[in-house]
């Protein structure tokens, strides 16, 4: 569970020195990219709640039945359900784990966590962000002023309280989180991995810099020439990306800013199914929607053309005015 220990600087540097950071094309398939994620790894997941979730990549990891992952994400929704319900993840490191504001408590999370079979490691939202940021900056910790005095901190011996050497104030040092792999979904990137992200960034830039490898799924691949025309719009540089997978609607049934909003009918049927029976309901869902389809487009077809188009028109409407 790498998520727990701060990696030594020597080890971080060594890992990075090993990576091929040359300007090279790295476009591959979902199943090829999945090979970067191995059993027992700590995986950072981009986006937040129901936004820009790298759902196609998670879907592929379930199909390849990865095991014993520790998954870190700022806020977790149905993606967390699928990861613990499918058996892929042993532990979720996050600040909030439900099915979404609209549905509240996740019966799937409750079933697996209350039984002690899976773990839900809780940090404050900002603390998760500062753990990724410390990892991105190549330092072992960030100082913060929240979590102090709370029971959230009492359950987190990984963090250390100090008296500030400058002001004498109490501060909390949260440990750097450098995931083995980060999974991030973006609106567009080039074949080298230079990524543009529209709208809400969440913690994806820090996550990308912190991780020891990065898999990008992208709605489309654009030319490097187009990227070079607006270099100040590049949010993630190519040399921290190890795989690029072109996956239209790769965040479905969640949303991708400016392109599609959540596919609510599918989400509601999912919630009804798994909350009715968090074990059999989840198994049925996985059989039908994850293991059943031969490809990601086939999964989208199961969501249904009409719902996909509706979500698309709502998604694009953000730019209508």
């Amino acid at each position, binding site marked *: 569970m790498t998520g727990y220990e701060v990696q030594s600087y020597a080890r971080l540097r060594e890992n990075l020195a090993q990576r091929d950071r040359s300007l090279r094309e790295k476009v591959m398939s979902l199943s090829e990219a999945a090979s970067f994620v191995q059993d027992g790894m700590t995986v950072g997941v981009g986006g*937040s*709640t*129901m*936004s820009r979730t790298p759902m196609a990549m998670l879907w592929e990891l379930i199909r390849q039945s990865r095991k014993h992952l520790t998954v870190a994400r*700022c*806020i977790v929704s149905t993606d967390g359900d699928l990861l613990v319900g499918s058996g892929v993840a042993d532990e979720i490191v*996050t*600040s*909030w*784990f*439900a099915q*979404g*504001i*609209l549905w*509240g*408590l*996740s019966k799937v999370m*409750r079933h697996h*966590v*209350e039984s*002690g079979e899976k773990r*839900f490691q*809780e940090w*404050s*939202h*900002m*603390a998760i*962000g500062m753990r*990724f*940021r410390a990892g991105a900056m190549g330092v072992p910790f960030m100082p*913060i*002023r*929240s*979590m*102090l*005095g*709370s*029971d*959230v901190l009492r*359950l987190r011996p990984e963090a250390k*309280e100090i008296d500030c050497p400058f002001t004498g*104030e*109490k*501060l*909390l040092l949260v440990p750097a989180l450098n995931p083995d792999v980060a999974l991030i979904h973006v609106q567009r990137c080039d074949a080298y991995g230079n990524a543009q992200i529209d*709208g*809400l*960034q*969440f*913690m994806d*830039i*820090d996550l990308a810099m912190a991780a020891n490898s990065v898999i990008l799924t992208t709605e489309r691949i654009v030319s490097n020439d187009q990227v070079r025309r607006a270099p100040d719009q590049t949010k993630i540089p190519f040399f921290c990306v190890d795989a690029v997978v072109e996956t239209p609607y790769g965040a479905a049934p969640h*949303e991708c*800013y*400016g392109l599609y*909003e*959540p596919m609510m009918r599918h989400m509601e049927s999912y919630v009804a199914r798994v909350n009715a029976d968090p074990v059999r309901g989840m198994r049925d869902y996985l059989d039908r929607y994850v293991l059943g389809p031969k490809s990601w487009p086939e999964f989208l077809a199961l969501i249904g053309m009409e719902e996909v188009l509706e979500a698309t028109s709502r*998604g694009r409407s*953000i730019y209508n*005015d």
Partner: protein
Amino acid sequence: MTETLRYTTSEMLAILAARQLKDGQVVFAGVGVPLLAATLAQRLRCPGLTILFEGGVIGAFVEPGKLPPSTNDQRCTKRANMVLGSAEVLLLLQRGYVDVGFMGGAQIDQYGNLNSSFIGDPAAPKTRLPGTGGGNDISSLTNMIVAMKHEKRRFVEKVDFVTSPGFLRGRRSRAESGLVAGGMFRVITELAIFGFDDDSRRMTVLALNPGVNREEVQDNTGFPLDFHDRVAVTEPPSNHELETLRLLDPERLFIA
């Protein structure tokens, strides 16, 4: 009562909460009643009020009938002044740019500590709740207004777990733990409006809602309440407040 002056609990909470805000404030709001209340205040009295969302939004512009379902989806950004990273928007709280944090609550205690993590013993919980999200950060770093339903099981002497710190164990315990700024400012329920005593930091009834008496509030509270020297009686929602609020949520997503 005339037809127009009937209102739901959520409408009551939103309207009383809105009255707590001042023009020019920067408010960190959750969705639902908090967002409705902040937007209502903006429309009624506070044109210079700024609303922040946890997902990474500054100065959102909420259009009537287009309320965002969560703070992390694209609808929150429509016509906003700025969209930024979610760590960045939370750091605004730490730097001190935010005047008020505004959220709902599941369980609260006499010192205004909030629990959204565990019902029962955290080691073997009866219920694992969703957790803090930004709640711990907001309540650690700014002044809080909480709007919640008033039930005995929700108003307890000591929360099972301090997810979002109020005044912790009262007196100076919050400051001594390193939380030098902010603290619980107001709790608003369908029964009353509560503040916290400057010394003891215990929950204190400041005003009773129309038609509610002290016994009723105490009977629905799991610990002995303090009452302010001069307990006021809150003005009921006005026609104008109700009409403006209902325009914001015509489908009654949050005010039903």
